């Protein structure tokens, strides 16, 4: 099948969208505001949905972030007349993966948009039917569940939950333990500690329980993340051994330098273990890898995504170490201790790329750059270095170069690129790196729509198969 220009454009557009859907979260970034991001994303979603509907739906099978997954579902459900074959299954499978609070938020968005078609009702009904404990949802996501039930006229499976939500005074007591605890918590302090943490927090404040006492007693009811968030106050030790890589990197970066230095072996061990888990079967298969990692001031992210780009870079550092046969890291600040990185100083990316290429020994098999794409000392030098290197020094592509960018650029509807000759992929979690490097190959412009479609079909098939299990 011969490639047409249309096909190439389509492939490019979809890759564009995947990059955006992986990185953009509609939150403030270092250089762009939340409003700019939302505006930019809204356009992108609409554009891709209208022009490439099947591919748009297929993106649900990729590692797009939850924010965009919810947006895609919303956009698909809003336009039922154009729906394709597998859409319903894709949506259901993705909703099952999303955290429940996001799904309830999505239902509320559907309500605001006045979307109440048959397919939507079926999907919401199935999702609610699959919830393990609707009583828990009624307590924890009360407003969300109430809004969904009311908007879609769904009968709740049992009378108790229905009464709890819509007629709380009808019953003197509930048979469901959580619902009853919620009722008692209004006047009984002991019942507070039977509730989920987020709900209990409000009751504890109302009863005037001191924070320390509350945290200590509620500890068994906390989720892993809640424990992590409050551990500084509660003195509850976080379990580092099961944390995903990027989360762990964020945790490490939030610690003060002295603590990082003092717990060096423990933290490094945990990071290495998480990286080994993420690398899985690929561990040690990537050959010689040189990495350029951005720890400039802009990697501090924003107030809502604090140090996220730096955490991604740190996660990538340990993951690449696990993937590579031999590995060298080059931080933009010139630092050599990954555990003590901090967002600081300018971004002399061009010179660091040269450092990475010039490292002693034979040329690396892979060059991985993790950066937000802003190269300012001097601007554009990284692009020039990569271009000249590609065209004159390594035209046979002995070294595969890839740029991973954790930051969405709302002006460009994409992540910022360094050079056209180096493929760029958006990255949100370091552990997605192997999959992203695969996708980035498409971005180089050497493969067309047919390959991309085949790749997406394969991913969709895998995704649906996993969902069935």
């Amino acid at each position, binding site marked *: 099948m011969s490639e047409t220009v249309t096909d190439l454009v389509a492939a490019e557009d979809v890759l564009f969208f995947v990059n955006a859907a992986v990185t953009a979260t509609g939150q403030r970034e270092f250089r762009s505001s939340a409003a700019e991001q939302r505006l930019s994303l809204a356009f992108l979603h609409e554009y891709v949905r209208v022009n490439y509907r099947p591919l748009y739906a297929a993106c649900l099978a990729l590692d797009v972030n939850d924010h965009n997954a919810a947006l895609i579902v919303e956009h698909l459900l809003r336009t039922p007349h154009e729906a394709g074959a597998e859409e319903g299954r894709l949506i259901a499978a993705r909703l099952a993966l999303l955290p429940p609070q996001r799904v309830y938020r999505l239902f509320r968005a559907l309500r605001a948009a006045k979307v109440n078609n048959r397919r939507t009702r079926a999907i919401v009904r199935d999702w609610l039917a699959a919830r393990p404990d609707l009583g828990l949802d009624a307590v924890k996501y009360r407003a969300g569940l109430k809004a969904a039930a009311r908007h879609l006229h769904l009968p709740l499976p049992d009378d108790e939950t229905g009464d709890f939500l819509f007629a709380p005074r009808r019953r003197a007591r509930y048979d469901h333990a959580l619902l009853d605890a919620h009722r008692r918590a209004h006047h009984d302090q002991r019942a507070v500690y039977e509730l989920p943490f987020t709900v209990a927090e409000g009751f504890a404040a109302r009863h005037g329980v001191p924070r320390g006492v509350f945290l200590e007693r509620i500890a068994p009811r906390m989720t892993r993340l809640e424990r992590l968030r409050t551990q500084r106050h509660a003195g509850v030790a976080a379990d580092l051994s099961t944390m995903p890589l990027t989360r762990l990197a964020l945790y490490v970066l939030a610690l003060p330098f002295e603590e990082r230095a003092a717990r060096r072996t423990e933290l490094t061990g945990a990071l290495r273990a998480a990286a080994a888990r993420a690398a899985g079967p690929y561990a040690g298969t990537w050959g010689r890898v040189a990495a350029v990692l951005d720890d400039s*001031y*802009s990697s501090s992210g924003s107030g809502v995504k604090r140090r996220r780009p730096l955490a991604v870079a740190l996660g990538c550092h340990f993951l690449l170490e696990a993937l590579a046969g031999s590995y060298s890291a080059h931080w933009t600040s010139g630092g050599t201790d990954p555990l003590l990185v901090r967002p600081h100083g*300018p971004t002399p990316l061009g*010179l660091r790329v*040269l450092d990475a290429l010039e490292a002693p020994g034979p040329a690396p098999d892979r060059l991985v750059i993790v950066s937000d794409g802003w190269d300012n000392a001097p*601007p554009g030098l990284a692009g020039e270095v990569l271009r000249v290197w590609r065209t004159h020094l390594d035209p046979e592509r002995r070294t595969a170069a890839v740029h991973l960018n954790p930051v969405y650029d709302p002006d460009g509807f994409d992540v910022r690129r360094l050079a056209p000759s180096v493929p760029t992929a958006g990255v949100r979690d370091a552990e997605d790196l192997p999959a992203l490097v695969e996708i980035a190959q498409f971005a180089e412009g050497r493969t067309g729509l047919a390959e991309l479609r085949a790749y997406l079909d394969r991913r969709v098939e895998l995704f649906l198969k996993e969902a069935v299990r």
Partner: protein
Amino acid sequence: MTGIDLTGLEVRPAQVWGGVRLVPLVRAAPVAGLRLHREVYACSGHGVDVGDGTAYTSYIPHGFVADWSGEGAGAESAAYGSRLGGEPRTVPVRGPHHRLAKRQRAKSGRAEPRLRFLPLHLALEGYLALHFGGPSTVWEEWSREAVRQGLSPRAEAAYAGWSVPGLGEALRVFEIHPGQCGLMLYVADALAAAFVVPHPDDYRLLHPTLVEDLYGELVHQYAHYGAPVPEFTARIRDAAGGGRTLADLRAAAVAQERDWAAGHDGLMARDLLETSYAFERVYRMDGFELLRFLPPFRRGGTEQHIGELITDHKGRTAYLKTFRLSENQIRRGHLLQRLADHDWHLGRTAEALGTSYRELVLRIQRAGFGSLLNAHEVARRLRETKEG
């Protein structure tokens, strides 16, 4: 000394945000023996009750404390935050800041090696006080008010940094270089301000204060109406510089940085660095001098800056802060200078300026000094010249 000497400060590649270009200045080694701190005035409200129910409140975002005790950030540690005074409850007879540059004293009354001054106030004071006394010779054309009270009121409009569009954002996303001791700030590629401090740690602390400082109306207008400026992106030529090895490529990359520095000093900052200024010493501390400078008020497009600086014993700049004058302000300064040169004699000044008496009167009026002229006398003189 006639010019600003920025020896020891190297230019690093600019960072661009919208219409604002920020050029970092980096020192290889900090200036020994001098530190600058930021002093935050926490005392609430220098409010003065005017009497009719209105209150006059002054706002001083921060002051600088020059510390040459050699103790580094000793007792006078720098602090964050500044505030606008709350409700004025008391009426101070005299504000606590009665002198512009003031030696700090310890509790015991002993003078400490620290000097407190307000950023840019020395410079502005120097500009505003320009021939403040009014005519030195009482010619008949000058009104009685001019002779008695001089140029009054002394006032100039300036804009706070946060009201200059895009500046706050540009300063926020700016990535400070290691060793950075200064910054040149361009708005729509016109030099708006230069800021240099002795030590990188001082700079890191004082960087946010740039958004609280004052900028001339020209800067504000340029920021408002100017388009985003282009980045001077690096270019490596394939034929000549690219070469065949990584070492060649590195040489070409480093050359890019050098080219930029040379281009910046010769082209963008030329007017600041090559103009000769009139310096006036305000204070001397061991080996260091606190000076303020005025430009030659030359008309014809060149940038004119007023400012203040601290130099070390070799005349190199340890501290520098400039304020870009607008075309109107230059014109006013120019006119005052020429008048002073010719003893405030209107006829001789007009001759020296190569214009007519009538033109000069119009220029004085347009510059806002019209009330200083004795209208009757000027009208009489004009009639005479017409007859004559």
